[in-house]
């Protein structure tokens, strides 16, 4: 520190004076200070010119400018809280010199953690991250519910336990969920196949809403959800977080804990996360939603080595889930549905219970992951992600002859993935990435189900290569990428006449993407992105033939389906999240050719009565929509937030809507800081929120058993006490405050229960040690 002062003093007295007298010094160095991992602006970072008194602080966009420099060579030192200082030599020859800094931002100082690969993360694509509070919510409310707080994302559910995220009206195989470079499998096959994922190990969640990502391939054509861990914690102090929560509606509790510890000397660290959750039947305002209890247990462990740019980590996680489906949803014929629709309560209601009977789903998901990184040079890195996933999904039906304990569906899915990435920066302007992915997958059905499998035995081989390049100019980033995928699918199944079929399909597909990100005003950023992607049809879309559990429809696949093509364009206008008035507005347009969906095609007569027959068909479709978010800090203790998202989808063949498109959604929230002690850093906050969902007016009556339910408005409130440095928080929250009777269009089981879950009180306590 003393030395520093001397240098400044010395340079003030001599250095600067001497140079200044020699020639006019009016040259400028300017540029951005950006996080090495995700190129986010490191606002208020500082740059000093070594040996002079000159320096500057970056603005909220990370931009800095140092004026009054003479020609000659200088050493610039860039520093920021939580970053290693970065030194760079620069030759000032011209009037203006452009220079960007990419310090590596260390996690522990930040609430929100970025551990992304250096730059090169398709930054022109429209993306949202969950903030610290949302991440905390995620660990209790689950991934899908928390993601739905992002405008443009909604929850597609099958009853109250099975939930999957939709982005701009797309779900399933069109959305990829990626954990540390490994795509989560087992959630693509239908709207009642929810992602089985243990979220506790992850510290960062990001959603790409934008156009086709070349990095993640055709299965991310509609968007991607990225889950990441912080860099390995190598500190010796044990860090622990414990989360306890209890609910009133569906009485039950959840307990979870995350522990981590490291060893500075060996640069290693480990982390363990475990959680258990048990809930009983949920209740609608007027009745018990029988058999909607759930049990979840998960355990994750990771061990890593982290020294500079050399990183290795192994993560092992397991997830078990046993979820009841609404008892009344077990129907067999069209007549059963009509009876359910006429009734003002579910046709099967039992007294409240913690038990979970058929119909139910039970899943085990295990994942073994390796993430490695080595640095070939300062600006050239190699990364390797390898993973193996095993998923077992069992679906139990109400069956005769004691067969309710024999799963009607019992699938074992094995997936191996390899990803090799080469991450390069040629200079301050050009950087990019080249990569190779290989995915191998096998689905094996357990033959003891006594039911023809809905998904046939298959094996899939899917290699892909991609490259993208980025140019970072002063206030503008331009990006372009391409990806080529090959997919070989080999299925094996018996038809109704016990004849063996062994179809093979090969698909060659490409993905293109170009985008720009421009700072048009000091406080305003514009992003535009357009991409084209082809997605090969899934196994169920090709070879389904039979009755799908929990849907009374008889589903028929089409083995000749072609790849669907999506051309998506999105533009976004936003400003810094730290602004007093923060806004972000995006508009998008999705043009589909050969969009695969299920179209009713008459009836199938079975011994249990008639069933609607649904065929997988292709059509051209157009989706257009917007998402808007506004946050305003009216007073230091009062903040309001408003969100809106709307989407209009048209089947071009009929001119009518497409099934399961989220209706217009508008919500508002107001948060108050009731009391705050600056010295102790304790606070008491309260908030109220209101959410309105309109009626979906655009639909094709032939696609649905009953028209969409009317719109509804829900209210909620919360009060939260945050202890010293937020080490512990106690929160009481209520959802559906007025016990509103409503029905959600995006619930597949809405036909069987005319009301959704009623008022729910949630009490949550979080305690952190050395957090």
């Amino acid at each position: 520190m003393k030395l520093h002062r001397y240098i400044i003093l010395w340079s003030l007295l001599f250095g600067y004076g001497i140079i200044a007298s020699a020639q006019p010094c009016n040259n400028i160095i300017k540029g951005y200070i950006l996080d090495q991992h995700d190129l986010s602006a490191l606002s208020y970072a500082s740059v000093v010119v070594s040996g002079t008194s000159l320096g500057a602080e970056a603005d909220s966009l990370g931009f800095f400018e140092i004026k009054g420099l003479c020609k000659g060579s200088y050493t610039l030192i860039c520093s920021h809280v939580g970053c290693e200082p970065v030194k760079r030599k620069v030759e000032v020859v011209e009037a203006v010199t452009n220079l960007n800094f990419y310090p590596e931002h260390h996690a522990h100082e930040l609430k929100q953690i970025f551990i992304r690969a250096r730059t090169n993360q398709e930054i022109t694509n429209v993306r949202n991250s969950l903030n610290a509070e949302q991440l905390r919510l995620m660990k209790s409310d689950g991934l899908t519910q928390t993601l739905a707080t992002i405008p443009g994302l909604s929850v597609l559910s099958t009853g109250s336990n099975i939930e999957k995220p939709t982005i701009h009206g797309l779900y399933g195989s069109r959305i990829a969920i990626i954990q540390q470079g490994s795509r989560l499998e087992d959630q693509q096959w239908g709207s009642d196949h929810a992602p089985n994922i243990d979220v506790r190990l992850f510290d960062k969640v990001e959603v790409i809403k934008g156009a086709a990502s070349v990095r993640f391939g055709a299965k991310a054509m509609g968007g991607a959800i990225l889950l990441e861990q912080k860099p390995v914690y190598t500190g010796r102090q044990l860090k622990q977080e414990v989360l306890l929560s209890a609910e009133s509606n569906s009485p039950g509790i959840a307990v979870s804990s995350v522990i981590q510890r490291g060893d500075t000397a060996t640069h290693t660290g480990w982390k363990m996360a475990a959680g258990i959750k048990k809930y009983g039947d949920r209740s609608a305002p007027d009745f018990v939603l029988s058999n909607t209890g759930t049990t979840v247990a998960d355990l994750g462990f990771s061990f890593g080595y982290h020294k500079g740019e050399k990183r290795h980590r192994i993560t092992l996680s397991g997830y078990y889930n046993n979820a009841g489906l609404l008892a009344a949803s077990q129907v067999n014929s069209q007549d059963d549905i009509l009876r359910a629709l006429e009734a003002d309560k579910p046709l099967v209601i039992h007294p409240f219970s913690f038990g979970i009977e058929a119909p139910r789903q039970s899943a085990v998901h295990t994942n073994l992951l390796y993430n490695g990184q080595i640095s070939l040079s300062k600006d050239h890195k190699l990364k390797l992600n390898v993973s193996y996933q095993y998923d077992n999904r069992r679906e139990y039906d109400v069956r005769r002859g004691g067969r309710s304990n024999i799963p009607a569906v019992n699938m074992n899915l094995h997936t191996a993935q390899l990803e090799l990435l080469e991450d390069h920066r040629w200079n301050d302007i050009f950087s990019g990435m080249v990569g190779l992915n290989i995915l191998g997958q096998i689905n094996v059905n357990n033959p003891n189900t006594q039911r023809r499998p809905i998904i046939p035995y298959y094996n899939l081989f899917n290699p892909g290569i991609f490259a993208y390049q980025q140019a970072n100019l002063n206030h503008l980033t331009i990006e372009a990428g391409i990806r080529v995928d090959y997919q070989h699918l080999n299925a094996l199944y018996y038809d109704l006449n016990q004849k063996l079929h062994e179809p093979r399909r090969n698909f060659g597909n490409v993905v293109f993407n170009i985008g720009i990100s421009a700072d048009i005003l000091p406080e305003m950023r514009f992003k535009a992105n357009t991409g084209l992607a082809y997605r090969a049809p899934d196994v169920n879309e090709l070879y389904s033939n039979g009755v799908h559990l929990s849907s009374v429809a008889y589903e028929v696949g089409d083995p000749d389906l072609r790849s669907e093509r999506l051309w998506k364009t999105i533009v976004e206008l936003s400003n810094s999240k730290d602004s007093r008035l923060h806004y972000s507005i995006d508009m998008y347009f999705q043009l589909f050719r050969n969009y695969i969906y299920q179209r009713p095609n008459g009836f199938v007569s079975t011994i249990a009565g008639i069933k609607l027959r649904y065929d997988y068909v292709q059509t051209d479709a157009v989706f257009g929509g917007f998402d808007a978010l506004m946050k305003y800090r009216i007073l230091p203790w009062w903040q309001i937030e408003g969100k809106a998202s709307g989407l209009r989808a048209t089947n071009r063949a009929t001119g009518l809507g497409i099934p399961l498109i989220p209706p217009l959604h508008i919500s508002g929230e107001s948060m108050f800081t009731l009391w705050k002690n600056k010295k102790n850093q304790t606070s008491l906050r309260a908030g109220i929120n209101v959410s309105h969902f309109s009626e979906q007016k655009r639909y094709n009556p032939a696609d649905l058993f009953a028209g969409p339910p009317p719109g509804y408005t829900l209210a909620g409130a919360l009060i939260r006490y945050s202890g010293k440095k937020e080490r512990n928080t106690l929160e009481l929250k209520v959802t559906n405050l007025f016990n509103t009777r409503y029905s959600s269009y995006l619930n597949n089981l809405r036909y069987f229960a005319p009301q959704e879950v009623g008022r729910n009180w949630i009490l949550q306590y979080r305690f952190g040690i050395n957090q």
Partner: protein
Amino acid sequence: MNKLNGYILLLGAGLMLLVSCKDDVKPVNEEEVINEVTIRLKDDHNREYNLEYRDADGSGPGVPVIKSDTLPTNTNLQGNISLLNTLVSPTEDITAEVSEEGTAHQFFYVFTDSPAPVIQYADMDADGYPIGIEIQCNTGDAYDGSLRVVLRHQPNKKGTGVATGDMTQAGGSTDVDILLPIVVR
């Protein structure tokens, strides 16, 4: 770099292993499918009258074959219903399963036109509620219409009218719902 090559080789080998192994895929015996329904009725002179519904492809989309004998007027008939799965071998007797889980099943017999013959339950489950496997039929006057035969799984047997054969309040899910043409002459 060498280490990296090692990793790639290892994984490549793993992938090949995954892709090349293939379990035997066997056809599944769908034992619980009902593809034949037969109602056998006898009068006091042991004359038999059969009502039959046969679906050769079970839950598949094929059209069933239906056959029913003409019934005599004003006759008391005793009989039973039988459910079979002939798609598996040996043939599975589903009636036995229904009988075993009597408390969770009930048949309903509904004539589509009136005046119609009358069908009454002639059996009971463990709780004293009818199942409807054994039945009694009074054919009454001439009739030309249909009989709807419904088997409900997990019905509310205590519902109003359910015990006397009215399925309005029965709830449950449908295992069988067929229509048989009936002629009484």
